[in-house]
């Protein structure tokens, strides 16, 4: 007798579970999947190739779906998804894409690019002189070349518009570290683009 009751109750549990599974999927599609574009763009920048980016994004969404119950409705879903994806990236994908290098940032001034372009002449228009000559692909390549730590915060802040605090939560570092990496990342990017412009003859290096 009691086994029949148990079986019937289990049947009921399964029925309600199927219903809530459907609700879960609808909610997930409405709240999480809308961020797909943003996540995929970032995955492309993190992994630097299409195949890995697609895998990374899928892994992130599958994990998000599995842990959907842990997500507090109404809180920042986009940041939550980015945190999941960044963790997966750091744990599983980064060793494939990493560029370990010791970077010496000591000899790059703050406002480096401003200084370099000013030295070329006080009346020169920086846009004509520099910005208009650099292609999209060159800027993307310069970002790709950045070491992972700097690249990650630069992508999240500049290109995805997250606040310092959100970035700190996503990467599990403190806000001071975020600011410091953004600052150093900007210096690096300016130096990298400047070197590129010098190498290709767009500008003459005043120091030389």
């Amino acid at each position, binding site marked *: 007798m009691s086994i029949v009751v148990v079986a019937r109750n289990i049947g009921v549990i399964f029925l309600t579970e199927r219903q809530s599974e459907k609700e879960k999927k609808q909610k997930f599609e409405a709240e999480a999947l809308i961020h797909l574009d943003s996540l995929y763009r970032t995955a492309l920048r993190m992994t630097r190739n299409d195949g890995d980016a697609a895998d990374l994004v899928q892994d992130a969404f599958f994990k998000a779906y599995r842990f959907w119950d842990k997500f507090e409705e109404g809180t920042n879903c986009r940041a939550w998804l980015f945190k999941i994806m960044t963790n997966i990236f750091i744990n599983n994908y980064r060793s494939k894409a990493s560029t370990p290098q010791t970077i010496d940032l000591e000899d790059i001034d703050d406002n480096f690019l401003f200084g370099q372009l000013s030295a070329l002449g006080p009346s020169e228009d920086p846009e004509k002189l520099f910005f208009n000559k650099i292609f999209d692909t*060159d800027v993307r390549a310069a970002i790709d070349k950045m070491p992972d730590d700097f690249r990650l915060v630069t992508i999240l802040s500049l290109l995805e518009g997250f606040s310092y605090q959100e970035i700190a939560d996503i990467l599990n570092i403190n806000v001071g570290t975020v600011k410091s990496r953004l600052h150093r990342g900007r210096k690096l990017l300016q130096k990298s683009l400047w070197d590129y412009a010098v190498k290709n003859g767009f500008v003459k290096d005043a120091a030389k």
Partner: protein
Amino acid sequence: MNCKEALEKLQEIIDKEANDVDAREVKEHLEHCRECLSKYEFEELFRAFVIEKASIEAKTDLLREKILKCCDKPERAKGLFGSGLKIGAILVSAAVAIILCVITAFTVAEFYRHQAYIVPFEEKHMNSIEYTDYSKPLVGELLSVRDYLNNNLRISLTGDPKGFRLIGAGFSNVKSGRFAHIRYRKGADYISLFISNANVNLPDFEQMSYYSIEYHMHVSDNCLVLYWKCGNNSIIAVSENPGIDMTPLIPVIKIS
């Protein structure tokens, strides 16, 4: 506010992260300081330039389909009602077994949670989003570290030092070069092992950054350092508490 202070706030102001007081003070400074104003305007320009050039379009229709498809769970309940009773009994005992496992897992997780120094390393930890403590060294590169040691340096680690447990491996950048970095733990004692074929300056280890975290370790304060060279390779063992016996490390490192 003087120029130095105004320029320190530049990044925050441009990223719209500065507080109201700072924003006001900088604005006042820029009203009468043309030099700082030009720098501010330039950096705004640079930021906009990078954003514009670096934006990419993403084609995500196929991806969207794939993700939705895999979120679908197949129908389960049909087969169940067919052979109801027997399956019911099996399910109940399975449920009991699962509950017991969950209790054990919670106990183990509690145990690990209180030990804040444990760095998740095993495969099962890597898939869990609870374990994200990056305040301690890097996780999950044991395979690449082992490859680097075996292929580039012809060194292998024959096991864990007696009494110690491997808790993490990664690569660290020091001024002299790139080091394979392996971390062991015994209770509250930690040892870091650095191996490389770079030329070593021991003072370089006074300030190191691990691959993704700033972590300052002062080698001179009460830490024991063992250092030995074999051929081109340097091996450095650093204890993070005074008085740890590091001799168990020695038989573990095998040089071919």
